[in-house]
């Protein structure tokens, strides 16, 4: 059992959420409420990571952010930070890869809010921020919760992008999914077995918990 890889995966999943939750709320709300020419292109971009093969996505991330790329060079020069084959690169890849899993449920949840509720909030004198906290967030919360669970579990299990972008450096980029692959390559089926089962149970638990939670929230309405 590679505990280091498990901890690394949990860290990566948590940090991905920290970055993606506010960004996803903002982007999802914006897409739900705004109409503008070219909106379909933005929506397509949001979904793209879902349909692209992970290796392709990982490849482009590597090419655009790696040490040889302009962006990679610039960041390395100015901040002394590498964006590939380390945890930072892994985090960027993970955030990009999870955009559809976070943004789409959030967007749908905002779209489901009846328009007159926002108007009623404005008529009641609520500012945008008050409306967000007191009206919108409580109403989209079930959708946001399931988006968070999806993102978290999905990060734990991601393989292709992580391999392309991070390789398999123990304690730095070797996630639990990579560790399982390594164990299988080494014919250590016992360790692979345990880790796979753990990942399976963890995922099942998280998804089930989110379903129970949304069902309860739905009843309370």
């Amino acid at each position: 059992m590679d505990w280091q890889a498990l901890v690394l995966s949990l860290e990566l999943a948590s940090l991905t959420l920290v970055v993606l939750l506010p960004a996803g709320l903002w982007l999802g709300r914006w897409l739900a409420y705004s109409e503008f020419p070219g909106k379909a292109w933005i929506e397509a971009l949001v979904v793209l990571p879902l349909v692209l093969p992970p290796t392709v996505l990982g490849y482009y991330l590597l090419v655009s952010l790696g040490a040889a790329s302009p962006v990679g060079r610039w960041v390395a020069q100015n901040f002394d930070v590498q964006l590939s084959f380390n945890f930072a690169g892994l985090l960027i890849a993970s955030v990009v890869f999870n955009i559809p899993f976070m943004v789409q449920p959030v967007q749908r949840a905002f779209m489901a809010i009846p328009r007159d509720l926002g108007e009623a909030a404005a008529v009641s004198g609520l500012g945008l921020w008050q409306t967000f906290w007191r009206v919108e967030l409580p109403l989209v919360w079930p959708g946001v919760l399931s988006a968070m669970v999806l993102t978290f579990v999905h990060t734990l299990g991601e393989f292709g992008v992580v391999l392309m972008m991070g390789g398999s450096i123990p304690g730095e980029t070797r996630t639990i999914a990579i560790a399982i692959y390594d164990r299988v390559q080494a014919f250590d089926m016992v360790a692979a077995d345990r880790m796979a089962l753990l990942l399976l149970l963890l995922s099942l638990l998280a998804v089930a918990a989110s379903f129970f939670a949304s069902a309860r929230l739905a009843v309370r309405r």
Partner: protein
Amino acid sequence: MSEAMSVAGSADRSLRIEVDQHSPMRLSGAFGCAPGELLALVGPSGAGKTSMLRVLAGLMRPQAGRVVVGGEVWNDTAAGVFRPVRERRVGLVFQHYALMPHLSAIDNVALPLLQQPRLLRQAQARRWLDHVGLNAALHGRRPAQLSGGEQQRVAVARALARNPSLLLLDEPFSAVDQMNRQALYQLLADLRQQLAIPILLVTHDLNEARLLADRFVVMDAGRVLQQGTPASIYQAPRNTRVADLVGIRNRFEGEWLGPADDPGWGWLRWHSGGSGTASVVRLKVRDKGKLAAGQNVHWVVPGDAVTLLDRAAQSPGELGVTVTEVRQLAEITMATLGLRDVPGAQLRLTLSGRQRSQLAVGAQMAVQLELAMVHVMPVRTTADAA
């Protein structure tokens, strides 16, 4: 609740709105509403009633227009003034109430009171809910656990909690059953007594509007066609469209024959309904000097200007009729009378009391028209509509 509202004699608390918009949809007209007055915006769906309300609330910006409430300019496109919704003190009861589904009744009402400390907010919200007559046992319930009538009371309480200088009600009774409606009418009547602010009611139910409103603003296709007291509109609709919109049943066709010998009076030839052929009947009615002789006209006569006589016509002022249809309802009888001398024309009367029992289909009777109450309108042409 009245401290803020009764700030001694301060300025003018009335409402004045003028709108002139051509796109994306037509919306034009001007009207006012005095404090304590209840104005009903009536008209078919799509007439622009709700849009007018949205302009007043600030949910819609008109192409051109001006809204002044209580001496404050809320909107003036010419001067570039637009006060956003959240800065207008307006109470709006939405058609489907728009209560927050995740908040209890009391938290919904407390929403406009957010600037106050929590405990005070709750206490005030409770007072408003008591005021609109929502049982205290229901204060903690969410909207989904309340009936339509109860939800409406919560919505009214929330609108009042805003301490509004203008109260807007958008089809507030449409989702409430008849029994609850009566109670809510009473609530609205009580509120009118207590609030010294303009109140606007959007409705397509004319009975409701007549029951509740001091004045009507009749709208159609985005335009204000006529405004005034219900009595004045029913007695003298500006044109046939208004007559149709307010449901005037006794509308007839005719030809204006020109002035009579007495000044202020003129002759009207009654035409048969539909075919427009002249009948032998000539009526001497009020002449306002606006009609040319020979012009085709429509005319209306209110039900209370028609006297039904239980005998055959005797004098020239009486018209022979045949009862063609009688519908007995619980407290009234609706009768349709065919005119002997005007084929195709039908008078519709609502009767109550003693006269009801004498009616039988086929009976030959007579009517007397109070001719001073007859109102003659030109046939509306496309030029009038512009």
